[in-house]
């Protein structure tokens, strides 16, 4: 078991103000364990930046910078260019981080530019499926039918009316050398992917499913369980791609009905009220089934 002293020695230290059960902070720790000290990190505005760097405190024991919401990939590009031209690269990993909003919405242009220009940057998107820092508003990665404060359920609405955008495929379409999807519920798989990403020169994209207790409305102890259910239902397929080809998928041993996943989370509560809700759950089951076929998960 980890003692308090042990966690102080970690590169992402305790003492931050993340919620209990925050899967995003778990993922950060796992990533820095793999990348080590020779890393410079950027972070987009969002939960992670806010809860880890309340001046004068910081949880980062590596050089770290936050600039704005939409420019994490751009700032990382500048860091990489600076290290390159001054001969200071020396195997340093430039890690750019952002939430789903900072990555797939407002930061998409800067991210696309970074990919296109071929910077040696590892970009990690912590996908908690909404703008959590500002209080659970919808993003382009909010799943179908999820309640958020700007895609609320109501008499005329089942929540978010559009399916989640295929962000990893957008990354792959840039023909970058490595794209991976991981989950905070599968730490070994996550770390393996980060290790591989770090060994490749060029732009890399890793998207990580990170459940959010207050946003998804579940008890903190269920973070890992929910993350695993997302994978086991087929709703969050984990895979790796090189350039535009998928090279591996994380198989699931047996298909779990999406209901098992949905029922644990308050953001889907409205689907369990009546027959109309049932039909919506069937639509979500269809998304999962299609993923299972498309990615060959079974």
């Amino acid at each position, binding site marked *: 078991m980890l003692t308090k002293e042990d966690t102080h020695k970690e590169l992402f230290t305790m003492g931050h103000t993340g919620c209990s059960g925050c899967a995003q902070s778990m993922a950060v720790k796992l990533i820095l364990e793999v990348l080590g000290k020779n890393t410079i990190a950027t972070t987009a505005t969002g939960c992670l930046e806010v809860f880890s760097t309340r001046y004068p405190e*910081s949880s980062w024991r590596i050089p770290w910078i936050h600039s704005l919401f939409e420019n994490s990939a751009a700032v990382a590009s500048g860091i990489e260019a600076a290290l390159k*031209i001054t001969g*200071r690269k020396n195997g340093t990993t430039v890690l750019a981080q952002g939430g789903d909003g900072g990555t797939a919405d407002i930061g998409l242009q800067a991210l696309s*530019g970074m990919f296109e220009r071929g910077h040696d940057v590892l970009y990690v998107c912590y996908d908690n499926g909404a703008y959590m820092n500002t209080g659970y508003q919808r993003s382009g990665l909010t799943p179908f039918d999820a309640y958020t404060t700007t895609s609320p359920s109501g008499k005329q609405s089942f929540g978010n009316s559009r399916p989640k955008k295929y962000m990893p495929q957008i990354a792959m379409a840039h023909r970058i050398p490595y794209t991976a999807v991981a989950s905070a519920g599968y730490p070994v798989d996550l770390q393996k992917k980060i290790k591989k990403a770090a060994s490749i020169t060029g732009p890399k994209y890793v998207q990580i499913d990170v459940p959010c207790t207050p946003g998804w409305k579940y008890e903190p102890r269920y973070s890992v369980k929910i993350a695993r259910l997302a994978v086991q239902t087929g709703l969050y397929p984990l895979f790796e791609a090189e350039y535009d080809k998928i090279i591996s998928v994380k198989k699931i041993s047996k298909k779990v009905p999406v209901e098992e996943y949905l029922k644990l989370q308050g953001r889907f509560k409205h689907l369990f009220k009546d027959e109309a809700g049932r039909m919506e759950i069937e639509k979500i089951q269809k998304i999962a089934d299609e993923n299972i076929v498309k990615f060959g998960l079974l």
Partner: protein
Amino acid sequence: MKKVLEGSMAISESVRIAEPRVISAYPITPQTHIVEHLSQMVADGNLKAEFVMVESEHTAASVCLGASACGVRSYTSTASQGLLYMSEVIYNIAGMRLPVVITIANRAVSAPINIWNDMQDSMALRDAGAIQLYAENNQEAYDMHIQAYKIAENKDVMLPVMVCVDGFVLTHTFEVVETIDEVERVREYLPPLNMEYKLDVDNPYSFGTLGEPSVYMESRFNLANAVNNSKKVIVSAAQEYKDMFGKFHGALIDTYKTDDAETIIVAMGSILGTIKDVVDELRESGKKIGVLKVRSFRPFPEEEIVAALEDAGNVIVIEKAISLGKGGILSQEIRDVLYKHRINSINVNGYVLGLGGRDITPKNIIDLIEKAKTDENMDGEFFGLNSFIEQGNISNIGD
């Protein structure tokens, strides 16, 4: 060496000899030639820098921010819409105290879209915490960029510097410019950047942390002091430059024939050349008139301006920007510092001219001086409008 150079080429030459290691930009008229020249210099091996050709101005400024945070000298350039687009980042660069130099090829702001010169773009950024210097001619634009790095990187300053040059009027005009040929002498004036705090794996710091109400004001207070204190650094940078390279265009301000002047015209940028010609002519006919050039708009040289103007009876401010809903920007600030120094005997007339590339002719200036004789405290009055507007026939404007 004396050369006939296009303004953009002069600026690129100056940037080259200042040796930035990361350059990032996105094209926009009338800045394009600057970045084209610089990319060519990098491609030809005449400038050892990473040229990061990005997908937007927001990213160009962000790349410079990241590079600068690594302690590496960085450069970008933009204008108009591009500047407004990167404005969020410029505020951030200033707040993080990073010494990025940014050339602004001053251009009007849309709508209507217009690629020609005025100063509305940089004026919109006057509160960002970046130093703003305005060049009068291509020689000054050349010298100002080297000085800009010297100012930006001073330990007591550590701020971005915007070097503002009139689009087309300077950027696309060929003039004789004397360049410095020995990089060693520039290095002596401008030593390599050596930042105390930077992104460094051997000495990790966190940059851009959350500033809660308990600390935010102190951080902004430090920033405000840094901008104010940069005045003396701007002065010493100009003085040292003069001593080493023999060129001087003023420090915070410059004055021309103001000693006994009853009327003083205040302006910034390239229009000063035309104004000085008119003043020479009027001086011949015995008129006591002079010129005040504002070279540093931020920080605003309050004491120097008051000292230069206090004995004049009339001040005419000519500016190429407006604070809509209020009036002149430069004229407002001039009036403010005079009032602050309890000088209320001067009639300050502020006029807006030359928006969107409208020519300002010597005759315009002569007419304006004439008009100002009977005007009182004009606050950003438009001067030089086409007559169809004056007649109220606004429908013609779409032509």
